[in-house]
């Protein structure tokens, strides 16, 4: 077969995404809506884990800040939830800044553990209902749908296109970001932080920026989740949510945008296909995680930059550097 231009496949994918609600019933559109929210979360986490190489297993905390900001402000003050989108993103970003600031010098596993700690503290705080704001275990109900008079989002189909719009926006923005000076700085930090610092890259600033931007994305996803569900509760933001997001990023192929999309479709659609084994599906999910790491550690759709990083031959990073010299991700193009 003759090789088709990449634009063809992209066009086909966009056409399929646009046509999807006409091809299936409402149930499957709704499945895809949840999948879309995970896509947004996976994409935002990709900035932190994939681009900057910072292990974050507490992404649900940022997602929660976004969702609760929307829920609290819209139910208490009647602010239209659509207007709360930037507010939620900013709140999550500000929260990320405040908590990341003191821990930004931590590396690897230590950072991973601290983010787990923040995730758990967030969940406990939501349950304990500080100041009567979060509604405790029951959460907050009655979050209004996005509605600005002329523009409303109600039906599953409308939500589908609403979420699709943001996915396209994220994918476009992340593509720009990855190739920007900032993105190349992140690549350097991910490959070798000490060397990046020695080259004069402001590592602390760029790492904070990755957290803040990733959190803003999660805050936006939180807003969509809150209005779509019309309720928020602490259990929606527990550790396993963070874990699923992390797995979407890694199983898809760390740092790879198409990988995140493929992995989140798999994560949302496969359990629906195997409904009758619903009780065993988490078991299968766990087995898949282990088997994927053993047989295909680079993920479903690997990013070129990460290929050697994850499955590299030597644990001391020698292989990674070799790869870079031979024309991998150059920092100073």
């Amino acid at each position, binding site marked *: 077969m003759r090789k088709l231009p990449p634009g063809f496949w992209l066009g086909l994918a966009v056409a399929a995404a646009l046509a999807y609600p006409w091809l299936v019933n409402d149930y499957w559109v709704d499945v895809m809506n949840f999948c879309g929210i995970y896509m947004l979360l996976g994409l935002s986490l990709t900035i932190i884990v994939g681009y900057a190489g910072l292990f974050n297993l507490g992404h649900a905390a940022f997602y929660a800040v976004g969702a609760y900001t929307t829920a609290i402000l819209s139910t208490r003050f009647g602010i239209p939830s659509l207007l709360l989108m930037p507010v939620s993103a900013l709140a999550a970003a500000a929260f990320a800044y405040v908590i990341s600031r003191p821990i930004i010098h931590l590396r690897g596993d230590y950072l991973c553990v*601290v983010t787990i*700690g923040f995730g758990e503290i967030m969940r406990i705080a939501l349950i304990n209902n500080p100041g009567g704001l979060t509604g405790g275990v029951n959460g907050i109900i009655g979050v209004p749908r996005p509605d600005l008079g002329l523009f409303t989002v109600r039906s599953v189909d409308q939500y589908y296109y609403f979420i699709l719009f943001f996915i396209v926006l994220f994918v476009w923005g992340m593509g720009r970001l990855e190739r920007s000076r900032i993105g190349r700085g992140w690549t350097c930090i991910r490959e070798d932080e000490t060397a990046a610092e020695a080259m004069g890259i402001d590592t602390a600033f760029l790492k904070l920026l990755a957290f803040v931007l990733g959190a803003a994305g999660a805050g936006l996803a939180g807003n969509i989740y809150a209005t779509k569900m019309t309720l928020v509760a602490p259990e929606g933001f527990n550790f396993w949510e963070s874990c699923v997001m992390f797995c979407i990023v890694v199983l898809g192929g760390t740092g790879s945008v198409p990988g995140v999309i493929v992995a989140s479709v798999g994560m949302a659609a496969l359990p629906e296909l195997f409904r009758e084994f619903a009780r065993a599906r988490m078991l299968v999910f*766990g087995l898949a995680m*282990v088997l994927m*790491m*053993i047989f295909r550690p680079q993920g479903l759709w690997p990013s070129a930059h990460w290929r050697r990083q994850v499955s*590299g031959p030597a644990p001391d990073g020698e292989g990674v550097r070799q790869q870079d010299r031979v024309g991998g991700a150059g920092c100073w193009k």
Partner: protein
Amino acid sequence: MEQFVQQVLNGLTVGSGYALVALGYTMVYGVLKLINFAHGDLFMLGAYLAMTAAVSCRAAGVASPWVVLPTIFLVSMGLVSLAGVLIERTAYRPLRGAGRLAPVVSALGAAVVIQNAVMLAYGANYQVFPEGLVPAVRWAVAGMSIPVLRVAMLVLSLILMGVLYLFIQRTTVGAAIRATSLDHATARLMGIDINRIIMVVFLIGPALGAASGIMIGLYYRQVYFTMGWIYGLKAFTAAILGGIGNIPGAMVGGMILGLFETLAAGYISSAWKDAFAFLLLIAILVLRPTGLLGERVVEKL
């Protein structure tokens, strides 16, 4: 004052439980530089297996605690050790030297598998230990009522930790474990079979975790399939508190965490108990990332 003494005793008991689990984390981290996310779930598995063993003893008509208690400890600790080795073989060994991300995901996957396997086998509800396995005797000391079981838990934990410490410090295998945790390549040059040492670590750590799980099960008399997660995370906090990779550090860290948590719960707020533990974790990592007894470690991503 009496309340304070009782809180301290409670804190030490809880802390010794954390310390036993923390030893498993710290030993695995010492030799593999890997957070064994499945360790907390092995703790939970230990509690469930002990419960099954106790129920079977009852069904077989054995009631004497002098027979039942050693049986459940032996069965549960033995099986959990095997599970630990199995996990290392299947989920960790193929990934040795495969970067940093892959083992983390594999460990999370192993944790999900254990949790859900237990859930499928036993059901998703609370499970209850049979009644009267240990006599609910309380000592009255100077106006306080102290449960004997608490004291027994504390003593047993201290004995297990003492035995482990002697094993690591005084035996050849212990020396080999210490050498492996310092440097794999050099240890191998000295004729140490790294794979066997890692296997020994995965036999001992989970067994101690299981012992802690059994004691928690005996004390609270109910077990739940997700209990391993939060407990494991706190034990990991204890390991970091003492300096990860450092065995006396894990013991000290566990005790301090238990005391801190119990006193904070008693005097500030019990609803925020778990949050205090994580705040302590974050404070330690920010102020002294190597822990209380930890040596300076050069961290490599």
